């Protein structure tokens, strides 16, 4: 199935702003992070289709996943 991944901050380095991926049924957000070769514990905020999501959220065809590293400040 096809999903779209929106990357932010330094997660874009070497990967770009938007990545289209073809993944298997049953893929979770965590699986996606590994497929993108992002180190463990770097991703902090995950949204799927603009809603807060968990690392173990199951993805489905056409999902748009936003990944943010841990931010500080404000």
């Amino acid at each position, binding site marked *: 199935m096809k999903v779209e991944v929106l990357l932010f901050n330094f997660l874009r380095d070497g990967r770009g702003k938007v990545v289209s991926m073809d993944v298997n049924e049953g893929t979770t957000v965590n699986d996606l992070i590994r497929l993108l070769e992002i180190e463990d514990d770097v991703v902090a905020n995950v949204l799927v289709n603009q809603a807060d999501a968990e690392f173990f959220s199951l993805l489905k065809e056409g999902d748009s996943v936003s990944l943010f590293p*841990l931010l500080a400040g404000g």
Partner: protein
Amino acid sequence: MKVFNEKILRVNLKSLSHSTEKLDIAIAKKFIGNRGLGAKYLYDEIDPKVDALSPENKLIIVNGPATGSNMPTGGRFMVVTKSPLTDGIAYANSGGFWGPAFKASGYDMMILENKADKPVYIYLDDDTVEIKDAAFLWGKTATETTDALLEVHGEKAKVLCIGPGGENLARMASMMNDYDRTAGRGGVGAVMGSKNVKAIVANGKSAFEYPDAAKAKEIASAKVKFLREQPGTGKALPELGTAMLVNLVNASGVFPTKNWQGSQYEKAEEISGEALRDRFLVKRSACYRCPVACGRVVKDANGEEIGGPEFETVWMFGANMDNDDLAYINMANELCNEYGVDTISAGGAIACAMELYQRGYIKDEELAADGLSLKWGDKESMVKWVKKLGLREGFGDKLAEGSYRLAESYGVPEYSMTVKKQDLPAYDARAMQGQGLNYATCTRGGCHIKGNMLPTEVLGPVETRLDRFNTEGRAPHVRNAVNLATITDSLGFCIFIRGVGIPGFVEMVNALYGEEVYTPESIVEAAERILTLEKLFNTKAGLTKADDTLPPRLLNEPIVDGPSKGHVNRLGEMLPEYYELRGWDSEGVPKPETLAALGL
């Protein structure tokens, strides 16, 4: 210099005289320093009911125990006074390098009293205090003033000044130091302008004396290492500056648009930290002893290097005015700095005026003489309004009163997005319940940074953070965030190192004293004391529970778009518990037993 020089400089501007008095170190420890110590002196020395812009108000500039030390970000000073914007207490701090230079000149605190008959500036170095004629500086912008004073006093001097906004008593005027660092909120620059003080030049050179230099160095190094290892302060913040928050806050649906009529901006990517870096960043900049370096140096349309905008500024002159052109946000930011006005409250006045125009309260005829519009997204007009506000020129005179007084003059104060007449920052509290409680109760009026709930309600994995739509049990979290910010402020640190936590702050300050002055418990008690004293000041100034509230829009009008659609802030579910936790009565007035317990 050391934690405290134990010297206060008192300047009588009417007689152009000054005196030195001893700082009572026991009082300094009781109120920690910086914000707390300033509050103590302001409370003791002025009638909270005085007109903030009258000679009876006092302007206090004060350092904390960490200011000028080797601890990370230990360079901040605080300005404490009565606010001409909120009519309550104002406290605004700034980084850069001026605070350490002020401490190195031998003083902990400066109290400016009365009003000079003509413009003056104050010069300080190791042995000298001079009150000098500032006629040649009056009317100059922050950069022009700083350049002129460095020409006179040498490149190593540090300059704190006001721009035309402060001279013209714009109620949200800021004080600028080191060109583009800002004590921004509450109109502290207007108070300085009301006293006819254009600038304060600090040129002290004494070094910090450590009781155990090796120990202080060891702790400072450990904290720097810790901050560099954190993904936020070590990578995300240095990489993009505070504007890194644009995309996440927007994606969460708490990024207000068009004076808070919407809560998600479709063009956020265009004004994001990523876009700022890719299109405008020249280099990063850091304040005194800061390992984070969140500051930005960007290029303007002519390729000149200027200070870059912070997240709040990007939002205010971007999404909140429906402007997706970062070049114009950079320009607006630069003009706010040069004219010396707070980007949030100056922008808030313009955004509010745009909504008043949209709704027909402000008519074209009223703007004809200025030749500018108040249409959403009119970026050319937007930047010109900043200048007119700073000069109180044309309609800019009304803008300089701030959004609340502006909207009130048309009979519709509800379109001012303020708390205690001070404009709110970039987080829609309808979908961040704790942030709403923080906004409503902040003693200096609408503000996020003095108890920011962003880290606990938005940042981080959903598995570990608070449910931002839930009010239950939220008050203790807000109290803890406010206490942490109060401690950070009062020590003289930057809030961005709050990750070291209260034990980390205690470890650093005790190392600077060379003895165990604080425990985590006693420093929290000191924060409670400071907060309650600030609240007491506001109470005596005439502020009541009715002022501990949010704009009607946040309480009554649900968010209309994005993932936070349908929510309002449910302040009433949190406020009573917050008052109770603070030991304040149901009207928000500190109880006698609370005052006694805190030694007030």
